[in-house]
């Protein structure tokens, strides 16, 4: 299962990655520049020292001699405590200083010092060498003055710079990351605002979204609006189709049934009469099935966008009972209503609830024997319970749970016309309202009891 990707997260991580790269680059550049500057400083001082020594070269009796200036070496000790070595060579022969000091790069020109990095006495040293010619000498005049210094002071400076640069870089990174978090949040604010505007809408509110959207979201809003427009027209077409179909199927069937009844009365031969009766039964079955299929379609459709209208359940029950009273009358069944006098307020979809009650009652009438009672009760506690109990054959020991699945019928109802959708419809209505359908045997010991249980929302 893939987690939905988060723009906020992605935005944040991308900005943080950029900040990390910039911080790292900052640290590297500062370190590089600073250590280069420090190395340059050491080179300069070394060159100055070597030059100072070279400046005090003289000739004496045709030989090069040197009076080492105090400052030439003491200046090297002013900024750090690094070790200092020097070597003065005349024509390649060491005149004074550390004879084993390696000088791999000799200066070729008089005015340019040469620098090299060597290992001497176990330490890395930086060597600066200058070339001088001394006049009035017999042995030759090329003198190379080399001054070397270890680099631990440099390393300390570099360490200090690294620590400073790293902490500044880290601080910058943290700051940038915090800011990028804020930026990601603020960039997504219009999206959240729009989501809120759409979420707060009622179930049947399919008007175009008019909330102010940033330029980047305008195509999305347009697409959404056009989609809702299509949905709106599609829904109204479906609604039209359902009522149209109900009308188109029921009306001709009713006509056919009337005609069949008229014919039934006219016929005398018992076998003809039986054929017509069978026909009437088949018509009834079709009519009921069509009605229930349409009810079911309607319930499914309405459940997707449940309307919660304030309504009075008592009135609703009365109205349904009134509507079914003629059908019940045919079998001499009394519909007993145990309802409170005052209205029972409830927020729900009246059409669906009516369909549910209609189907339950219709079922009860169908399976009740002639001259029996059907009791409709309403009880309110923490939830509303509408119970319809009959004195019929009951559920015949069948698993009560299966009865609410689509097209399943009781095991003991072979002789009665039915589609098996009635309780399914009632169950779906109950679920759409967050409630449930409860099937039980009625208290009287005989017959079934169907309870529609609805929670107060």
């Amino acid at each position, binding site marked *: 299962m893939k987690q939905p990707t988060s723009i906020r997260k992605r935005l944040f991580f991308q900005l943080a990655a950029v900040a990390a790269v910039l911080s790292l680059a900052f640290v590297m550049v500062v370190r590089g520049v600073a250590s280069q500057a420090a190395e340059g400083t050491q080179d300069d001082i070394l060159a100055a020292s070597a030059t100072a020594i070279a400046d005090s070269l003289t000739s004496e009796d045709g030989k090069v001699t040197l009076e*080492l200036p105090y400052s030439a070496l003491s200046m090297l000790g002013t900024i750090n405590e690094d*070790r200092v070595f020097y070597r003065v060579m005349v024509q390649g022969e060491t005149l004074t200083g550390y004879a084993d000091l390696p000088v791999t790069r000799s200066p070729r020109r008089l005015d340019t010092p040469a620098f090299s990095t060597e290992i001497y006495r176990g330490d890395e040293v930086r060597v600066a060498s200058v070339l001088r010619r001394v006049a009035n000498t017999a042995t030759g005049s090329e003198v190379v003055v080399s001054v070397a210094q270890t680099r631990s002071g440099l390393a300390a400076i570099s360490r200090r710079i690294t620590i400073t640069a790293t902490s500044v870089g880290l601080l910058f990174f943290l700051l940038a990351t915090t800011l990028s978090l804020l930026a990601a949040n603020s960039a997504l604010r219009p999206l959240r605002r729009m989501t809120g505007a759409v979420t707060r809408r009622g179930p049947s509110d399919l008007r175009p979204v008019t909330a102010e959207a940033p330029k980047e979201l305008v195509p999305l809003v347009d697409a959404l609006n056009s989609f809702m427009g299509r949905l709106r027209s599609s829904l109204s077409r479906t609604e039209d189709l359902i009522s149209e179909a109900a009308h188109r199927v029921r009306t001709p069937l009713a006509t056919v049934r009337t005609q069949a009844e008229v014919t039934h009365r006219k016929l005398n031969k018992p076998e003809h009469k039986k054929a017509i009766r069978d026909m009437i039964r088949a018509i009834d079955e079709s009519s009921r099935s069509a009605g229930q299929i349409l009810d079911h379609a309607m319930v499914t459709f309405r459940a997707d966008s449940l309307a919660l209208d304030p309504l009075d359940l008592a009135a609703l029950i009365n109205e349904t009972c009134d509507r079914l009273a003629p059908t019940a009358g045919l079998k001499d069944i009394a519909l007993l209503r145990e309802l409170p006098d005052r209205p029972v307020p409830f927020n729900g979809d009246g059409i669906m609830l009516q369909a549910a009650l209609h189907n339950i009652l219709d079922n009860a009438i169908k399976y009740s024997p002639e001259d029996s009672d059907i009791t409709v009760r309403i009880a309110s506690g923490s939830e509303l319970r509408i119970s319809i109990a009959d004195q019929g054959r009951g559920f015949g020991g069948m698993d009560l749970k299966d009865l609410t699945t689509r097209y399943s019928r009781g095991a003991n109802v072979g002789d009665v016309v039915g589609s098996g959708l009635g309780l399914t419809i009632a169950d779906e209505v109950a679920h759409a309202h967050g409630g449930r359908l409860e099937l039980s045997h009625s208290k009287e010991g005989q017959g079934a009891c169907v309870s529609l249980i609805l929670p107060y929302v």
Partner: protein
Amino acid sequence: MRVTDFALRLIAAVTLWSGAAHSFEVEDRQVYTAVAETSVLRVISTADKAVFEPIIAAFQQANPGISVDYTITGTTDLMQAIYEEGAVFDLAISSAMDLQTKLANDGFAQSYSPTNAASLPDWAIWRDQLFAFTQEPAVMVVSNTFFKQGEAPQTRDALIALLRENPDRFRGRIGTYDVRRSGFGYLMATQDSRTSETFWRLMEVMGRLDAQLYCCSGDMIAEVASGKLALAYNVLGSYAASEQAKTEGFHIVELTDFVNVMLRTVLIPANAENVKDARVMVDFLTSLRARPDLADKTGLPPLDASALQNNPALRPIRFGPGLLVFLDQLKENKFLRSWENSILQETP
């Protein structure tokens, strides 16, 4: 006490000359055996036994497990022992700052951060290898028979003027170090020459007056005290101060134009074997300031940054590669030639 001391000396004398012979000259050697010996600390030092014994005693009181094998030698011999002969010592104590600096610079010392490093002035430690534990000015010692208290010249210029005006009175009666023989004398002379041109004038004048040359401060002080010398220039102040407690006949003059202050230093040689105890000793020496009783007994003035601040004439010799300059062979030859030309003049 006396008896054990004598016994120790005997033992030391026996062990001393049975060991391998060194070509560096050992002036004296003494083993101070610990009460409960667990280790031996081998020290090579330029400080006289008399000066250093109280310090060793106090050190052993604090660390009863450490015996101290104390070898005394000259500054040049100490340098030769460690630099050229690779002699193994755990600690090297010397008054020759320049030679000690060369040892540290050339990689013959190992690093250590004393436990009290934070309380030491910056100039007292170099490279975490060289640790100063005394500050000893170079002073002038004058004889009471020649100068009443307060009448001696206070500056080098005044001294030069006085000598020039009274050549007969001071002829042959002025003493100073023979810088060819004494490392301390050489260090002080070179620092003098760095600081002021008056040094060469003074040497000229002293040379004309047939200056007497000495190897050691003690001899000069004795000659001044006896009245044989009128004054001795560049005497180690700490010896003079401790001699004054014992000897009459002289007083000490700190010149007011400038006074070079030498720092006696200790370092742990790179090839030291008992580094642990050497560090304990370094800690002990660098905290001498907290032991005024030892300063009194030894005459070694401990580090005192405030004294330097209060007296601007005091110029502590700075550690650093500059001290290597006068160790350069050409430079040294030149300096000694100039010095000889100034001070060794034919008496007319």
